[in-house]
């Protein structure tokens, strides 16, 4: 059994929460007491229908106002897979929340209302999916009952979306017609769409090949912590603890430490205290090197024949998440995996309109939810990869040093 992390994107009335509720309900992941609690709340409402959307609204203000404030995580599993859903709300601060949820997602479900087709919201969600380099996209054409299960309407939407997906460079897009409210094509394949040749949504989610998304070629190991027991019997023990974010490491491999450029050879690899011949992403291990060289937290151990870039100036797509605007010249802390350096946003090249993908003239300041192309300069060189090539070593956050808040997400070009 493996793991799939996905995000659901849709605006308020696309039936996103209903779809999640349906997946949880029909896969029997909702417990009786949780259902009773929802029924109790629904009684206080006027329409009286059980509202599966209430399952994802966790906070008092959300229930009272009928809105979703923040990313909520939901879990369910089938015999084939464990699923982690990041459910991001569809309105206020949407970009910030979707970017957050999308950063770890293997797959995005993009909901389209069959009556409305591809609209501005759909474009925005797809642009963010592309910007965050989510490997798989499922376009769920919902509310098919309201267009009489029309194949024609479906084909039109698929055609429109496919054209957009091509310009965005979305790699793996699957389309499915469904009705979240009644569960048609959600867990089981429905008879309402005789012309649809694909599988149910759950079947698609269960069978997407996520293993291929883990990069096993470009080995990167950010050091988190140095284990040095300094006891009598372990006097010389010095192990570098971290998670292999990509690639494979073998005993005897020649390695280079970045940004210092120091080199050595892997002497030993420990996995949960046991020595192993090789280890691979995403395992957390301890590496031992032949030479006693200077390595500390935040350094990246890479194979000498395949190293990341090391630079102190680079271009990024920056999604601004702070409530205070960002102006070129502002200084922040930049954190990439376990490395933190001082950084300055040198200049903004242009603003990306996330509804149209148009490049707009660089604003004087970037505000909350803006996405801009910018140049960042760091106080010291950092090792990184292009986000498009290697998500796990190409994404960085900006931190406001005075408030300590995370204010920006950088996708390094």
């Amino acid at each position: 059994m493996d793991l799939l992390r996905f995000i659901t994107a849709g605006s308020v009335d696309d039936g996103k929460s209903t779809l999640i509720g349906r997946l949880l309900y029909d896969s029997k992941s909702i417990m009786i007491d949780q259902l009773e609690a929802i029924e109790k709340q629904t009684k206080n409402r006027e329409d009286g229908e059980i509202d599966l959307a209430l399952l994802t609204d966790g906070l008092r203000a959300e229930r009272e106002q009928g809105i979703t404030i923040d990313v909520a995580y939901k879990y369910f599993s089938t015999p084939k897979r464990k699923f982690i859903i990041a459910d991001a709300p569809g309105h206020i601060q949407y970009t910030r929340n979707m970017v957050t949820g999308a950063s770890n997602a293997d797959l995005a479900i993009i909901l389209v209302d069959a009556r409305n087709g591809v609209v501005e919201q759909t474009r925005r969600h797809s642009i963010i999916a592309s910007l965050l380099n989510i490997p798989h996209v499922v376009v769920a054409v919902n509310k098919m009952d309201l267009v009489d299960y029309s194949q024609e309407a479906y084909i039109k939407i698929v055609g429109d979306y496919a054209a957009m997906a091509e310009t965005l460079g979305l790699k793996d897009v699957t389309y499915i017609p469904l009705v979240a409210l009644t569960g048609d094509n959600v867990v089981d394949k429905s008879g309402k769409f005789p012309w649809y040749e694909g599988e149910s949504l759950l079947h698609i989610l269960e069978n997407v090949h996520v293993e291929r998304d883990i990069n096993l070629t470009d080995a990167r190991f950010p050091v988190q912590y140095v284990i040095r027991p300094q006891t009598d019997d372990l006097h010389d023990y010095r192990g570098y603890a971290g998670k292999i974010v990509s690639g494979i490491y073998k005993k005897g491999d020649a390695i280079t430490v970045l940004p210092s450029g120091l080199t050595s050879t892997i002497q030993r690899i420990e996995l949960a205290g046991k020595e192993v011949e090789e280890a691979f992403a995403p395992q957390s291990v301890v590496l031992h090197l032949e030479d006693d060289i200077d390595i500390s937290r935040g350094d990246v151990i890479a194979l000498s024949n395949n190293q990341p870039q090391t630079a102190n100036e680079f271009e990024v797509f920056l999604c601004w998440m702070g409530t205070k605007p960002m102006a070129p010249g502002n200084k922040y802390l930049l954190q990439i995996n376990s490395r933190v350096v001082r950084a300055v946003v040198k200049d903004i090249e242009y603003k990306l309109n996330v509804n149209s993908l148009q490049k707009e003239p660089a604003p004087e300041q970037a505000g909350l939810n803006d996405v801009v192309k910018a140049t960042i300069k760091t106080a010291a060189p950092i090792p990184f990869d292009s986000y498009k090539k290697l998500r796990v070593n190409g994404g960085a956050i900006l931190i406001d040093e005075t408030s300590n808040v995370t204010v920006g997400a950088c996708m390094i070009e």
Partner: protein
Amino acid sequence: MTAAPTATLNNNMVNGRPSGKYSLDYLDQLESESIHILREVAGQFEKPALLFSGGKDSIVLVHLALRAFRPGKFPFPLVHIDTGHNFPEALRFRDDLAAALGEKLVVRKVEDTIKAKGLTEQKGKLASRNALQTFTLLDTIEEFKFDACIGGARRDEEKARAKERIFSVRDEFGQWDPKLQRPELWNTYNGRIHKGENVRVFPISNWTELDVWNYIRRHNIELPSIYFAHEREVLEYQGQLVATSEFIQLEEGDVVSVKKVRYRTVGDMTCTAAVESSADSLDDIINEIIATKTSERGETRIDDRVSEAAMEDRKKGGYF
């Protein structure tokens, strides 16, 4: 460049998907994520602590810490906030485990806080110290200047928890502000805080109850005996089974009987309910959990039943 293989080339396809040596199953992936989080705590904070209750989730945390830091010592002590209403089996287990591992255990008692600060205890049949333990926790954080407290809470437990970050920043009163949470992207955790603030860290946020049990079975992790079916005298109270003890006031008309029960969660004796069960092995427990129709907290936690937002309110007040 390199001749390193790719996943698809190197794996044998089974049922249309690779099952080769370079893929991890979901439990191994969850474990690696949790170890990564624990090591981030070790790397980012000066004075972390692991909040240890003797319950299965914190026992799994200890197991993960062993896998994250051995052969080194833990870079944090185990800290138990003892309400005085704990199950004796859980306390014994706590002491034995800390001694066997040779790790430091700090125990602070709610009883002492009540005396020192003149706090008022809840009255009534199932008088709970759940609210009072937040006082002791905050005092303990202040006493040791802990800047990060690792806890075993999971997002599947409760819907307010479903919204909480893995690194959850609390102000100097321990309060959680759900509307001011930091965005948490990729596997990058921002644990920077001002003096006086602290971070609650939840390494098994993404685990479900079933994941925890499957992990316990896979690694054959020892648990306190009360998790397994045993005979116990229980009071039937509002449809739940509460162990009789010196902390519960029995009244005339109370229905008390001896039943075969086990615990799905271990909290205070006054706010944790037992479930009728004959499951005395991990296999049986896992089968019961797969078949159950009630959530873990719904079935066993009397403290969550107070109101729809009981957990949210407690967290805003400094609770785990």
